[in-house]
Protein backbone atom coordinates (compact mmCIF):
# COMPACT_ATOMS: atom_id res chain seq x y z
CA UNK A 1 0.00 0.00 0.00
CA UNK A 2 1.18 3.52 -0.76
CA UNK A 3 1.94 5.68 2.25
CA UNK A 4 2.48 8.76 0.09
CA UNK A 5 0.83 9.59 -3.24
CA UNK A 6 1.78 12.73 -5.08
CA UNK A 7 0.18 13.57 -8.43
CA UNK A 8 1.09 16.53 -10.63
CA UNK A 9 1.81 18.80 -7.72
CA UNK A 10 2.79 22.40 -8.41
CA UNK A 11 3.63 25.10 -5.91
CA UNK A 12 3.96 28.76 -6.76
CA UNK A 13 5.15 31.39 -4.31
CA UNK A 14 4.35 35.05 -4.75
CA UNK A 15 7.44 37.00 -3.82
CA UNK A 16 8.09 40.71 -3.61
CA UNK A 17 10.26 41.98 -6.44
CA UNK A 18 12.15 44.62 -4.51
CA UNK A 19 14.16 47.43 -6.08
CA UNK A 20 17.39 48.61 -4.52
CA UNK A 21 18.55 52.13 -3.67
CA UNK A 22 16.73 54.93 -1.90
CA UNK A 23 14.18 55.63 -4.65
CA UNK A 24 13.76 51.90 -5.17
CA UNK A 25 12.89 51.54 -1.49
CA UNK A 26 10.39 54.38 -1.78
CA UNK A 27 8.85 52.73 -4.86
CA UNK A 28 8.72 49.39 -3.00
CA UNK A 29 6.85 51.11 -0.21
CA UNK A 30 4.38 52.99 -2.42
CA UNK A 31 3.64 50.36 -5.02
CA UNK A 32 5.28 47.02 -4.28
CA UNK A 33 5.72 44.68 -7.23
CA UNK A 34 5.29 40.94 -6.96
CA UNK A 35 6.18 38.00 -9.15
CA UNK A 36 5.36 34.30 -9.05
CA UNK A 37 8.10 31.76 -8.52
CA UNK A 38 7.54 28.10 -9.39
CA UNK A 39 9.04 26.19 -6.47
CA UNK A 40 7.64 22.81 -7.51
CA UNK A 41 6.33 21.82 -10.93
CA UNK A 42 4.38 18.70 -11.92
CA UNK A 43 5.83 16.52 -9.24
CA UNK A 44 4.50 12.95 -9.16
CA UNK A 45 5.68 9.95 -7.17
CA UNK A 46 4.44 7.28 -4.79
CA UNK A 47 6.12 5.95 -1.67
CA UNK A 48 5.25 2.51 -0.32
CA UNK A 49 4.80 1.85 3.39
CA UNK A 50 8.09 1.03 5.06
CA UNK A 51 10.14 2.58 2.24
CA UNK A 52 13.01 4.96 3.06
CA UNK A 53 13.17 7.70 0.48
CA UNK A 54 15.48 10.67 0.14
CA UNK A 55 15.10 13.90 -1.80
CA UNK A 56 18.35 15.20 -3.17
CA UNK A 57 18.91 18.46 -4.98
CA UNK A 58 20.73 21.77 -4.72
CA UNK A 59 19.52 24.66 -2.57
CA UNK A 60 16.26 26.07 -3.89
CA UNK A 61 15.42 22.86 -5.79
CA UNK A 62 12.08 22.49 -4.01
CA UNK A 63 12.91 19.64 -1.58
CA UNK A 64 11.86 21.38 1.61
CA UNK A 65 8.80 22.89 -0.07
CA UNK A 66 7.77 19.39 -1.12
CA UNK A 67 8.31 18.09 2.40
CA UNK A 68 6.26 20.93 3.88
CA UNK A 69 3.42 20.12 1.47
CA UNK A 70 3.63 16.45 2.48
CA UNK A 71 3.25 17.27 6.18
CA UNK A 72 0.42 19.68 5.38
CA UNK A 73 1.87 23.00 6.49
CA UNK A 74 1.91 24.30 2.92
CA UNK A 75 -0.75 23.58 0.35
CA UNK A 76 -0.01 23.02 -3.31
CA UNK A 77 -1.13 25.47 -5.96
CA UNK A 78 -2.21 22.51 -8.12
CA UNK A 79 -2.24 18.71 -7.92
CA UNK A 80 -3.11 16.11 -5.36
CA UNK A 81 -1.32 14.72 -2.32
CA UNK A 82 -2.43 11.86 -0.11
CA UNK A 83 -0.59 10.78 3.02
CA UNK A 84 -1.95 7.55 4.54
CA UNK A 85 -5.18 8.22 2.63
CA UNK A 86 -5.53 11.75 4.02
CA UNK A 87 -5.17 15.10 2.29
CA UNK A 88 -2.49 16.71 4.46
CA UNK A 89 -3.49 20.38 4.35
CA UNK A 90 -7.18 19.59 4.80
CA UNK A 91 -6.83 16.92 7.50
CA UNK A 92 -3.71 18.38 9.04
CA UNK A 93 -4.58 17.82 12.70
CA UNK A 94 -5.80 14.21 12.36
CA UNK A 95 -2.82 13.37 10.15
CA UNK A 96 -0.45 14.85 12.73
CA UNK A 97 -1.17 11.87 15.03
CA UNK A 98 0.14 9.49 12.34
CA UNK A 99 3.22 11.33 11.16
CA UNK A 100 6.28 12.78 12.79
CA UNK A 101 8.59 15.45 11.54
CA UNK A 102 12.00 16.83 12.30
CA UNK A 103 13.22 20.02 10.68
CA UNK A 104 16.97 20.21 11.23
CA UNK A 105 17.08 23.97 11.50
CA UNK A 106 13.97 24.32 13.73
CA UNK A 107 13.51 23.11 17.23
CA UNK A 108 10.18 21.65 18.26
CA UNK A 109 11.25 21.33 21.90
CA UNK A 110 10.39 24.02 24.43
CA UNK A 111 13.63 25.85 25.14
CA UNK A 112 12.60 26.97 28.62
CA UNK A 113 11.70 23.44 29.77
CA UNK A 114 13.83 20.43 30.66
CA UNK A 115 14.08 17.64 28.08
CA UNK A 116 11.88 15.36 30.23
CA UNK A 117 9.21 18.07 30.62
CA UNK A 118 9.27 18.67 26.88
CA UNK A 119 8.69 14.95 26.23
CA UNK A 120 5.86 14.90 28.76
CA UNK A 121 4.31 17.88 27.01
CA UNK A 122 4.54 16.03 23.69
CA UNK A 123 2.77 13.06 25.29
CA UNK A 124 -0.11 15.34 26.28
CA UNK A 125 -0.21 17.02 22.86
CA UNK A 126 -0.47 13.61 21.18
CA UNK A 127 -3.00 12.31 23.76
CA UNK A 128 -0.76 9.45 24.88
CA UNK A 129 -1.88 7.43 27.91
CA UNK A 130 0.58 7.94 30.79
CA UNK A 131 1.46 4.21 30.88
CA UNK A 132 2.01 4.01 27.12
CA UNK A 133 4.11 7.17 27.26
CA UNK A 134 6.28 5.83 30.10
CA UNK A 135 7.04 2.58 28.24
CA UNK A 136 7.66 4.29 24.95
CA UNK A 137 9.90 6.92 26.50
CA UNK A 138 11.88 4.29 28.38
CA UNK A 139 12.45 2.36 25.16
CA UNK A 140 13.50 5.44 23.17
CA UNK A 141 15.69 6.84 25.95
CA UNK A 142 17.57 3.52 26.09
CA UNK A 143 17.91 3.26 22.32
CA UNK A 144 19.07 6.86 21.89
CA UNK A 145 21.17 6.82 25.10
CA UNK A 146 19.81 10.13 26.34
CA UNK A 147 19.16 9.24 30.00
CA UNK A 148 21.68 11.88 31.27
CA UNK A 149 20.01 14.55 29.13
CA UNK A 150 16.52 14.20 30.62
CA UNK A 151 16.93 16.65 33.53
CA UNK A 152 18.90 19.14 31.40
CA UNK A 153 17.27 22.29 30.06
CA UNK A 154 16.67 22.21 26.30
CA UNK A 155 18.67 25.43 25.87
CA UNK A 156 21.71 23.74 27.49
CA UNK A 157 21.90 20.93 24.92
CA UNK A 158 24.58 20.73 22.27
CA UNK A 159 23.34 20.49 18.68
CA UNK A 160 24.00 16.74 18.53
CA UNK A 161 22.17 16.16 21.82
CA UNK A 162 19.30 18.35 20.72
CA UNK A 163 18.88 16.48 17.44
CA UNK A 164 18.70 13.17 19.31
CA UNK A 165 16.03 14.66 21.57
CA UNK A 166 14.16 16.11 18.57
CA UNK A 167 14.06 12.63 17.06
CA UNK A 168 12.83 11.07 20.28
CA UNK A 169 10.12 13.74 20.53
CA UNK A 170 8.96 13.04 17.00
CA UNK A 171 8.91 9.27 17.63
CA UNK A 172 7.02 9.31 20.94
CA UNK A 173 3.59 8.87 19.34
CA UNK A 174 4.81 6.01 17.11
CA UNK A 175 4.34 7.75 13.74
CA UNK A 176 3.78 5.65 10.64
CA UNK A 177 5.79 8.09 8.54
CA UNK A 178 8.71 10.20 9.68
CA UNK A 179 9.60 13.29 7.65
CA UNK A 180 13.13 14.58 8.14
CA UNK A 181 14.35 17.84 6.66
CA UNK A 182 18.14 17.88 6.77
CA UNK A 183 18.31 16.06 10.11
CA UNK A 184 22.11 16.03 10.30
CA UNK A 185 22.71 19.65 9.32
CA UNK A 186 25.57 21.18 11.32
CA UNK A 187 26.50 17.95 13.13
CA UNK A 188 30.05 16.59 13.40
CA UNK A 189 30.98 13.30 11.72
CA UNK A 190 30.48 11.14 14.82
CA UNK A 191 27.12 12.69 15.65
CA UNK A 192 26.01 12.23 12.04
CA UNK A 193 26.95 8.54 12.07
CA UNK A 194 25.12 7.97 15.36
CA UNK A 195 22.00 9.76 14.20
CA UNK A 196 21.92 7.91 10.85
CA UNK A 197 22.27 4.58 12.65
CA UNK A 198 19.48 5.45 15.07
CA UNK A 199 17.13 6.62 12.33
CA UNK A 200 17.80 3.51 10.25
CA UNK A 201 17.40 1.08 13.17
CA UNK A 202 14.16 2.70 14.33
CA UNK A 203 12.73 2.54 10.83
CA UNK A 204 13.72 -1.15 10.51
CA UNK A 205 12.34 -2.04 13.93
CA UNK A 206 9.00 -0.30 13.52
CA UNK A 207 8.50 -0.61 9.76
CA UNK A 208 8.28 3.16 9.66
CA UNK A 209 8.28 4.96 6.33
CA UNK A 210 11.03 7.58 6.09
CA UNK A 211 11.07 10.61 3.85
CA UNK A 212 14.13 12.78 4.16
CA UNK A 213 15.85 15.64 2.46
CA UNK A 214 19.57 16.16 2.76
CA UNK A 215 22.62 17.56 1.07
CA UNK A 216 24.72 14.89 2.68
CA UNK A 217 25.38 11.79 0.60
CA UNK A 218 26.17 9.87 3.76
CA UNK A 219 22.63 10.39 5.11
CA UNK A 220 21.14 9.12 1.91
CA UNK A 221 23.56 6.23 1.42
CA UNK A 222 23.25 4.88 4.93
CA UNK A 223 19.55 5.41 5.56
CA UNK A 224 17.60 5.32 2.32
CA UNK A 225 16.72 2.69 -0.23
CA UNK A 226 15.42 5.07 -2.87
CA UNK A 227 16.53 8.46 -4.12
CA UNK A 228 14.52 11.17 -5.83
CA UNK A 229 16.57 13.89 -7.45
CA UNK A 230 14.79 17.21 -7.68
CA UNK A 231 16.05 20.12 -9.71
CA UNK A 232 14.23 23.38 -10.42
CA UNK A 233 11.14 21.99 -8.75
CA UNK A 234 10.84 18.98 -11.05
CA UNK A 235 11.64 15.33 -10.46
CA UNK A 236 14.66 14.43 -12.60
CA UNK A 237 15.59 10.96 -11.40
CA UNK A 238 14.01 8.22 -9.33
CA UNK A 239 16.69 5.69 -8.38
CA UNK A 240 16.42 2.51 -6.35
CA UNK A 241 19.17 1.70 -3.83
CA UNK A 242 21.39 -0.55 -6.07
CA UNK A 243 21.98 2.40 -8.38
CA UNK A 244 22.99 4.51 -5.42
CA UNK A 245 25.76 2.28 -4.25
CA UNK A 246 28.54 3.18 -6.61
CA UNK A 247 28.23 6.93 -6.74
CA UNK A 248 27.46 7.22 -3.06
CA UNK A 249 30.41 5.50 -1.52
CA UNK A 250 32.80 8.33 -0.90
CA UNK A 251 31.90 11.03 -3.36
CA UNK A 252 30.75 14.44 -2.41
CA UNK A 253 27.16 15.33 -3.06
CA UNK A 254 28.14 17.92 -5.61
CA UNK A 255 29.98 15.31 -7.68
CA UNK A 256 27.10 12.88 -7.44
CA UNK A 257 24.62 15.58 -8.23
CA UNK A 258 26.71 16.70 -11.20
CA UNK A 259 26.95 13.18 -12.54
CA UNK A 260 23.22 12.61 -11.99
CA UNK A 261 22.42 15.93 -13.60
CA UNK A 262 24.47 15.00 -16.66
CA UNK A 263 22.70 11.64 -16.80
CA UNK A 264 19.28 13.23 -16.86
CA UNK A 265 20.27 16.16 -19.02
CA UNK A 266 19.81 18.89 -16.43
CA UNK A 267 23.11 20.60 -17.13
Amino acid at each position, binding site marked *: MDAVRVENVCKKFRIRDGQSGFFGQVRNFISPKFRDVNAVQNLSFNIKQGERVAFLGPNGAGKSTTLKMLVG*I*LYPTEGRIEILGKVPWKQRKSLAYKIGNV*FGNRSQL*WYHLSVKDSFDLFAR*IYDLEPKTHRHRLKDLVQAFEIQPLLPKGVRQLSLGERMKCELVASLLHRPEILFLDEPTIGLDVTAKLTLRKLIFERSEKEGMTLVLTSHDAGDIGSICDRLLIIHDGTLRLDLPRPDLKSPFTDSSVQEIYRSMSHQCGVV
Partner: protein
Amino acid sequence: MGAVSAFKKYLCFVEMGMKRGFERKWDILGRVIFYGVILVIFSKLWTSVDLLAVGNSKVHTQGLIWYLAISEWIVLSVPLIYIEIESEIRRGDLLYFEGKPISYPTMKISEGIGELLPYLGILGCAGVIFAWALSGSLPEPPFNLLKIVPIGILAGIVSLIVQVAIGLSAHWIQSATPVYWLWQKVGYVLGGVMLPLPLYPDALEKIARASPFPVLLSGAAEGVLYGDSDFLINTMGMLFFWCAASIFLVIGVFQKCQDRMSRDGG
Protein backbone atom coordinates in the same frame (compact mmCIF):
# COMPACT_ATOMS: atom_id res chain seq x y z
CA MET B 1 -10.81 14.50 20.01
CA GLY B 2 -13.05 14.73 23.04
CA ALA B 3 -13.57 17.85 25.07
CA VAL B 4 -11.95 16.23 28.12
CA SER B 5 -8.85 15.27 26.17
CA ALA B 6 -8.65 18.77 24.65
CA PHE B 7 -9.05 20.28 28.12
CA LYS B 8 -6.24 18.07 29.49
CA LYS B 9 -4.03 19.00 26.53
CA TYR B 10 -4.34 22.73 27.14
CA LEU B 11 -4.30 22.36 30.91
CA CYS B 12 -0.70 21.19 30.63
CA PHE B 13 0.11 24.51 28.93
CA VAL B 14 -1.56 26.34 31.82
CA GLU B 15 0.68 24.33 34.21
CA MET B 16 3.72 25.15 32.10
CA GLY B 17 2.80 28.85 32.11
CA MET B 18 2.37 28.84 35.90
CA LYS B 19 5.79 27.30 36.29
CA ARG B 20 7.24 30.00 34.05
CA GLY B 21 5.37 32.68 35.96
CA PHE B 22 6.79 31.58 39.32
CA GLU B 23 10.28 31.35 37.81
CA ARG B 24 10.15 35.05 36.92
CA LYS B 25 10.51 36.19 40.51
CA TRP B 26 12.66 39.22 39.62
CA ASP B 27 10.10 40.43 37.10
CA ILE B 28 7.37 40.02 39.71
CA LEU B 29 9.46 41.88 42.29
CA GLY B 30 10.06 44.72 39.81
CA ARG B 31 6.34 44.99 39.13
CA VAL B 32 5.55 44.97 42.87
CA ILE B 33 7.99 47.86 43.44
CA PHE B 34 6.58 49.81 40.48
CA TYR B 35 3.05 49.13 41.76
CA GLY B 36 3.94 50.50 45.20
CA VAL B 37 5.66 53.57 43.74
CA ILE B 38 2.72 54.62 41.56
CA LEU B 39 0.27 54.10 44.42
CA VAL B 40 2.38 56.33 46.69
CA ILE B 41 2.72 59.04 43.99
CA PHE B 42 -0.97 59.14 43.14
CA SER B 43 -2.14 58.99 46.74
CA LYS B 44 0.02 62.06 47.49
CA LEU B 45 -1.23 63.78 44.33
CA TRP B 46 -4.90 63.26 45.17
CA THR B 47 -4.41 64.32 48.76
CA SER B 48 -2.83 67.60 47.62
CA VAL B 49 -5.35 68.26 44.84
CA ASP B 50 -8.34 67.57 47.15
CA LEU B 51 -11.02 66.49 44.72
CA LEU B 52 -13.82 67.70 47.00
CA ALA B 53 -12.41 71.22 46.74
CA VAL B 54 -12.82 71.20 42.96
CA GLY B 55 -16.50 70.49 43.38
CA ASN B 56 -16.53 66.77 42.74
CA SER B 57 -18.34 64.76 45.35
CA LYS B 58 -18.42 61.51 43.37
CA VAL B 59 -15.16 60.23 44.83
CA HIS B 60 -12.94 60.55 47.88
CA THR B 61 -9.17 60.14 48.17
CA GLN B 62 -9.27 56.83 50.11
CA GLY B 63 -11.61 55.37 47.52
CA LEU B 64 -9.39 56.56 44.69
CA ILE B 65 -6.38 54.79 46.18
CA TRP B 66 -8.32 51.52 46.19
CA TYR B 67 -9.60 52.31 42.70
CA LEU B 68 -6.08 52.77 41.35
CA ALA B 69 -4.77 49.73 43.24
CA ILE B 70 -7.42 47.49 41.66
CA SER B 71 -7.16 48.85 38.10
CA GLU B 72 -3.35 48.72 38.17
CA TRP B 73 -3.51 45.20 39.63
CA ILE B 74 -5.14 44.03 36.39
CA VAL B 75 -2.90 46.13 34.12
CA LEU B 76 0.34 44.95 35.76
CA SER B 77 -0.62 41.27 36.05
CA VAL B 78 -1.21 40.53 32.38
CA PRO B 79 1.89 38.97 30.78
CA LEU B 80 2.98 40.40 27.43
CA ILE B 81 2.45 37.29 25.33
CA TYR B 82 2.24 39.22 22.06
CA ILE B 83 6.05 39.64 22.13
CA GLU B 84 6.67 35.88 21.97
CA ILE B 85 4.04 35.44 19.26
CA GLU B 86 5.62 38.25 17.25
CA SER B 87 9.08 36.69 17.50
CA GLU B 88 7.74 33.23 16.58
CA ILE B 89 6.17 34.73 13.48
CA ARG B 90 9.35 36.63 12.56
CA ARG B 91 11.48 33.49 12.98
CA GLY B 92 9.01 31.56 10.84
CA ASP B 93 8.28 29.10 13.68
CA LEU B 94 4.53 29.55 13.58
CA LEU B 95 4.30 27.52 10.36
CA TYR B 96 5.88 24.52 12.08
CA PHE B 97 3.35 24.52 14.93
CA GLU B 98 0.78 23.80 12.25
CA GLY B 99 2.15 20.28 11.92
CA LYS B 100 1.15 19.46 15.50
CA PRO B 101 -2.30 18.34 16.67
CA ILE B 102 -2.79 21.54 18.61
CA SER B 103 -4.30 24.97 18.11
CA TYR B 104 -1.61 27.63 18.26
CA PRO B 105 -3.82 30.47 19.61
CA THR B 106 -5.36 28.21 22.29
CA MET B 107 -1.90 27.03 23.29
CA LYS B 108 -0.68 30.63 23.66
CA ILE B 109 -3.76 31.69 25.60
CA SER B 110 -3.45 28.67 27.93
CA GLU B 111 0.22 29.38 28.54
CA GLY B 112 -0.64 33.05 29.16
CA ILE B 113 -3.36 32.09 31.67
CA GLY B 114 -0.79 30.00 33.52
CA GLU B 115 1.57 32.99 33.70
CA LEU B 116 -1.25 35.36 34.63
CA LEU B 117 -2.35 33.45 37.75
CA PRO B 118 0.84 33.80 39.85
CA TYR B 119 1.10 37.47 38.86
CA LEU B 120 -2.52 38.11 39.86
CA GLY B 121 -2.01 36.31 43.17
CA ILE B 122 1.22 38.01 44.20
CA LEU B 123 0.36 41.49 42.91
CA GLY B 124 -3.11 41.17 44.43
CA CYS B 125 -1.68 40.55 47.90
CA ALA B 126 0.81 43.40 47.44
CA GLY B 127 -1.96 45.72 46.22
CA VAL B 128 -4.16 45.06 49.27
CA ILE B 129 -1.22 45.77 51.61
CA PHE B 130 -0.21 48.97 49.75
CA ALA B 131 -3.73 50.35 49.40
CA TRP B 132 -4.64 49.54 53.00
CA ALA B 133 -1.46 51.19 54.26
CA LEU B 134 -1.91 54.30 52.10
CA SER B 135 -5.65 54.78 52.58
CA GLY B 136 -5.77 53.63 56.20
CA SER B 137 -8.93 51.60 55.69
CA LEU B 138 -10.50 48.76 53.73
CA PRO B 139 -13.18 49.53 51.13
CA GLU B 140 -16.81 49.31 52.24
CA PRO B 141 -17.97 46.56 52.34
CA PRO B 142 -14.62 44.70 52.52
CA PHE B 143 -16.29 41.60 51.06
CA ASN B 144 -16.29 43.40 47.68
CA LEU B 145 -12.56 42.74 47.49
CA LEU B 146 -13.24 39.01 47.12
CA LYS B 147 -15.74 39.69 44.35
CA ILE B 148 -13.08 41.27 42.18
CA VAL B 149 -10.99 38.07 42.01
CA PRO B 150 -13.09 36.39 39.26
CA ILE B 151 -13.35 39.75 37.48
CA GLY B 152 -9.55 40.16 37.56
CA ILE B 153 -9.01 36.66 36.17
CA LEU B 154 -11.56 37.04 33.37
CA ALA B 155 -10.36 40.56 32.48
CA GLY B 156 -6.80 39.19 32.32
CA ILE B 157 -7.92 36.34 30.05
CA VAL B 158 -9.71 38.73 27.68
CA SER B 159 -6.57 40.92 27.56
CA LEU B 160 -4.51 37.81 26.71
CA ILE B 161 -6.89 36.84 23.90
CA VAL B 162 -6.64 40.34 22.43
CA GLN B 163 -2.85 40.14 22.72
CA VAL B 164 -2.89 36.95 20.63
CA ALA B 165 -4.67 38.87 17.85
CA ILE B 166 -2.16 41.72 18.24
CA GLY B 167 0.79 39.31 18.13
CA LEU B 168 -0.59 37.61 15.00
CA SER B 169 -0.75 40.98 13.26
CA ALA B 170 3.05 40.71 12.99
CA HIS B 171 2.41 38.29 10.14
CA TRP B 172 1.42 41.28 7.98
CA ILE B 173 3.25 44.21 9.53
CA GLN B 174 6.40 42.51 10.93
CA SER B 175 6.26 44.32 14.24
CA ALA B 176 3.16 44.08 16.42
CA THR B 177 4.51 46.57 18.97
CA PRO B 178 2.84 49.69 17.43
CA VAL B 179 -0.51 47.86 17.48
CA TYR B 180 0.04 46.95 21.13
CA TRP B 181 1.00 50.54 21.97
CA LEU B 182 -2.20 51.76 20.35
CA TRP B 183 -4.25 49.22 22.34
CA GLN B 184 -2.41 50.11 25.57
CA LYS B 185 -2.55 53.90 25.25
CA VAL B 186 -6.18 54.00 24.16
CA GLY B 187 -6.84 51.61 27.03
CA TYR B 188 -5.26 53.99 29.52
CA VAL B 189 -7.44 56.85 28.34
CA LEU B 190 -10.74 55.05 27.75
CA GLY B 191 -10.28 52.43 30.45
CA GLY B 192 -10.33 54.88 33.30
CA VAL B 193 -7.16 53.45 34.81
CA MET B 194 -6.03 56.62 36.56
CA LEU B 195 -9.40 58.31 37.16
CA PRO B 196 -12.91 56.85 37.36
CA LEU B 197 -15.03 57.40 34.25
CA PRO B 198 -17.73 59.43 36.09
CA LEU B 199 -15.07 62.15 36.44
CA TYR B 200 -14.67 62.31 32.64
CA PRO B 201 -16.61 64.75 30.44
CA ASP B 202 -19.96 63.16 29.48
CA ALA B 203 -19.13 62.72 25.79
CA LEU B 204 -15.80 61.01 26.52
CA GLU B 205 -17.43 58.81 29.13
CA LYS B 206 -20.02 57.66 26.57
CA ILE B 207 -17.31 56.82 24.04
CA ALA B 208 -15.34 54.96 26.71
CA ARG B 209 -18.38 52.96 27.85
CA ALA B 210 -18.93 51.73 24.29
CA SER B 211 -15.40 50.28 24.21
CA PRO B 212 -14.15 47.14 26.01
CA PHE B 213 -11.58 49.09 28.05
CA PRO B 214 -13.62 50.19 31.11
CA VAL B 215 -14.86 46.69 31.83
CA LEU B 216 -11.38 45.21 31.27
CA LEU B 217 -9.37 47.71 33.26
CA SER B 218 -11.59 49.45 35.77
CA GLY B 219 -14.83 47.44 35.97
CA ALA B 220 -13.72 45.77 39.21
CA ALA B 221 -12.35 49.02 40.64
CA GLU B 222 -15.58 50.93 39.94
CA GLY B 223 -17.58 48.22 41.67
CA VAL B 224 -15.45 48.52 44.79
CA LEU B 225 -15.41 52.33 44.67
CA TYR B 226 -19.15 52.84 44.26
CA GLY B 227 -20.20 49.74 46.20
CA ASP B 228 -22.80 48.69 43.61
CA SER B 229 -24.30 45.38 44.79
CA ASP B 230 -24.79 44.02 41.24
CA PHE B 231 -21.38 44.99 39.92
CA LEU B 232 -20.06 41.41 39.98
CA ILE B 233 -22.85 40.08 37.76
CA ASN B 234 -22.88 43.11 35.47
CA THR B 235 -19.12 43.23 35.02
CA MET B 236 -18.81 39.47 34.52
CA GLY B 237 -21.62 39.59 31.95
CA MET B 238 -19.85 42.34 30.01
CA LEU B 239 -16.54 40.51 30.28
CA PHE B 240 -18.08 37.32 28.86
CA PHE B 241 -19.43 39.36 25.97
CA TRP B 242 -16.01 40.88 25.22
CA CYS B 243 -14.38 37.48 25.72
CA ALA B 244 -16.61 35.99 23.01
CA ALA B 245 -15.94 39.00 20.74
CA SER B 246 -12.17 38.70 21.19
CA ILE B 247 -12.28 34.93 20.52
CA PHE B 248 -14.06 35.64 17.22
CA LEU B 249 -11.40 38.25 16.46
CA VAL B 250 -8.57 35.77 17.09
CA ILE B 251 -10.28 33.04 15.04
CA GLY B 252 -10.68 35.44 12.13
CA VAL B 253 -7.13 36.80 12.30
CA PHE B 254 -5.61 33.33 12.73
CA GLN B 255 -7.54 31.90 9.79
CA LYS B 256 -6.28 34.71 7.55
CA CYS B 257 -2.79 34.14 8.89
CA GLN B 258 -3.01 30.36 8.32
CA ASP B 259 -4.25 30.83 4.75
CA ARG B 260 -1.43 33.19 3.97
CA MET B 261 1.19 30.98 5.62
CA SER B 262 0.02 27.81 3.87
CA ARG B 263 0.03 29.68 0.57
CA ASP B 264 3.18 31.77 0.80
CA GLY B 265 5.14 29.98 3.53
CA GLY B 266 6.02 31.17 7.04
